[in-house]
């Protein structure tokens, strides 16, 4: 959905060194196209006239998203219309849908703003050499470092995505980023505190941290050998390659160096670009999650979900559907603690923060679709197995 528009004008008119912007955003495409048209008609030439790169893929992406949205709306509201539930019932359903949608969105936006700001300031103030100096490159240390990076950047599942993308553009190794993406929503101080507040320093507290750490590090390890262009979206992959390639000439700034104030403003603008890039995925995710909530009966899921094996799967599915922020899901899990097995609670508290509907959609702004699919499947399978084994053989 992001229009990864190369900006050929920049290759023609090199300018003074500035932090990298995120140029690929669809409004930009529109605005550029507009400018292009006008410039084209009025002046005839100009660097702002962009070549039209394959529009089909963009069209396809938007078409698919619109289709997804349409299907979601039909699924949520269709049965009311077909069974003749009446306009009033439909209206109430719409209001419920909007209230849940805005609830998830308003809850998540501050975290995305914070994450985008962290990303913006990393873009402007953090040098690539810093990452090279502090982040290990060998497989196992890299994965472990990624899983623990959340302690340095306390972000939840919404904030982690822009930060990861920015770190990738600064040359972060693949495995570190993947581990960070999965682990950071749990391995951070805020979530430690909320989990402790809900469950105390018990089995759940330590189990949540350890399982998240192990699963995130293992999945990161799986991706250690993957090449950036196999994992990242092309634009991010190109930036990553540039950051890692030391043979490329480093830009030498000409003219006066920007002041800290100017750099801060640039960081904010970069944060805004990041936010605009990501928030569309967040909105689509919130729409889906709210649609599922308006449609899928929680009590049915929970009634089915008894027993040592099926309870794990049931709570994993619930965590995926609910898309509750990782900073507060411990309180939610408390509600299930009376009736559900410990293994299933651990699965809820570890799988939900790693992937849920909204974060999986946001991953699409960094990673290729195939990789996002694996990032859902691998943690799901591993956590399911851990939860089941816990229920059958540990049974605390």
């Amino acid at each position, binding site marked *: 959905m992001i229009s990864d528009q190369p900006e050929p004008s920049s290759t023609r008119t090199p300018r003074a060194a500035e932090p990298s912007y995120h140029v690929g955003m669809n409004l930009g495409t529109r605005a550029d*196209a507009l400018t292009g048209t006008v410039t084209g008609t009025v002046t005839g030439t100009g660097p702002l006239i962009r070549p039209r790169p394959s529009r089909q893929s963009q069209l396809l992406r938007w078409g698919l998203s619109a289709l997804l949205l349409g299907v979601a709306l039909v699924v949520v509201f269709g049965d009311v219309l077909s069974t003749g539930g009446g306009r009033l019932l439909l209206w109430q359903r719409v209001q419920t849908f909007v209230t849940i949608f805005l609830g998830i969105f308003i*809850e998540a936006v501050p975290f995305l703003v914070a994450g985008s700001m962290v990303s913006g300031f990393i873009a402007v103030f953090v040098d690539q050499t810093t990452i090279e100096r502090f982040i290990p490159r060998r497989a196992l240390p890299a994965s472990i470092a990624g899983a623990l990076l959340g302690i340095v950047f306390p972000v939840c599942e919404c904030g982690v995505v822009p930060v990861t993308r920015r770190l990738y553009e600064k040359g972060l190794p693949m495995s570190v980023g993947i581990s960070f993406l999965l682990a950071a929503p749990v391995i951070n101080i805020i979530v430690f505190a909320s989990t402790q507040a809900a469950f105390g320093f018990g089995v759940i507290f330590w189990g949540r941290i350890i399982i998240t750490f192990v699963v995130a590090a293992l999945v990161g390890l799986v991706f250690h050998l993957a090449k950036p262009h196999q994992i990242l979206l092309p634009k991010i992959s190109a930036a990553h390659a540039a950051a890692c390639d030391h043979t490329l000439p480093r830009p030498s700034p000409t003219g006066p160096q920007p002041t800290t104030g100017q750099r801060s403003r640039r960081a904010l603008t970069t944060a805004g670009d990041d936010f605009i890039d990501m928030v569309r995925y967040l909105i689509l995710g919130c729409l889906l999650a709210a649609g599922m909530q308006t449609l899928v009966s929680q009590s049915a899921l929970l009634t089915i979900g008894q027993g040592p094996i099926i309870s794990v799967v049931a709570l994993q599915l619930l965590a995926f559907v609910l898309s509750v922020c990782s900073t507060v899901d411990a309180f939610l899990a408390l509600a299930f603690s009376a009736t559900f097995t410990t293994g299933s609670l651990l699965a809820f508290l570890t799988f939900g923060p790693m992937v849920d509907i909204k974060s999986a959609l946001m991953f699409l702004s960094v990673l290729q679709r195939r990789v996002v699919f694996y990032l859902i499947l691998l943690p799901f399978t591993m956590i399911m197995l851990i939860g089941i084994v816990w229920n059958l053989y540990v049974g605390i």
Partner: protein
Amino acid sequence: MMQPNTEPSTQSVNQDAQTVRPSPIQNGAKAILLIALGLFLYSRLTGGTLAFYINERFFGYTLFAFVGLIAVGLSYPLIRSHPRRKSAPNAARPQTLTPQTIDYQYHDLAPHDHSRDHRLTLVGALVIALPILLGLLVPPRPLGAAALETRELNLDLRSGGANLPAAIAAVSQDDGPRNIMDWWHTFQRTPDLTTLEGSEVNVQGFVYHDPRYGEEYFMVTRFVVSCCTADASALALLVHWPQAPALETDQWVEVRGVFTPGDLSPADLPPGSEASWRPPVLTAASITPIEIPSHPYLYP
């Protein structure tokens, strides 16, 4: 996911070293969207309807998001005031652009473009504007009976544990007026519910007619929200009130009355209930319709 159509290395260097300077229209549109989103959050915060969406302990985060979005949005137009190369394509444009002038240009230029990108990118802007549009088009209303379609109310305290945020159990609140959540807490701590009979009750909630019970019964219901409406779970007391059918679903009421022994006939009980079990029934003495309270949800 398009491949860059320039040579990758050149592209990379540019990504790394030089900012692609976006057009003022693009910047202005982004700024407007960001500021509009911030103002939308602020309007919900000051308008008092934010409590319809999230737990009040997250209000501070919303304020932060407002400030952040405004700051980020304002950083856009100002950046155009930096000196530029003379050969820069936009040199003829005004050096400083306010959101208003950008807005003007944006709307002025829009009708000229009927190409495919126009439609595609309009969708993108609409997606970002969707929360604002939905928020303005659909009047804010807290969750009500319609949300109970997917969240079952259960009066059986033993199997209804899943509906009850157990954080409540950690809170002991014996003083003051008890709300529905406090009463559930009391139920959980009371081994023999018959000892509660005769207790005076004064609770607020919205009306929900559960088809499982007889015509003279309704549920006075509150949602408990620990984070946002996504995690809402419903708690209710069963109320006996002969004029119950006259009460409209979703009407907020204040119910005064006493707990009485459950006099439900077995046919009125939910299927699968044990014959010996009776839900505590609140026999109402008075029912007063009220406005939707400023904090419609209970916080564990």
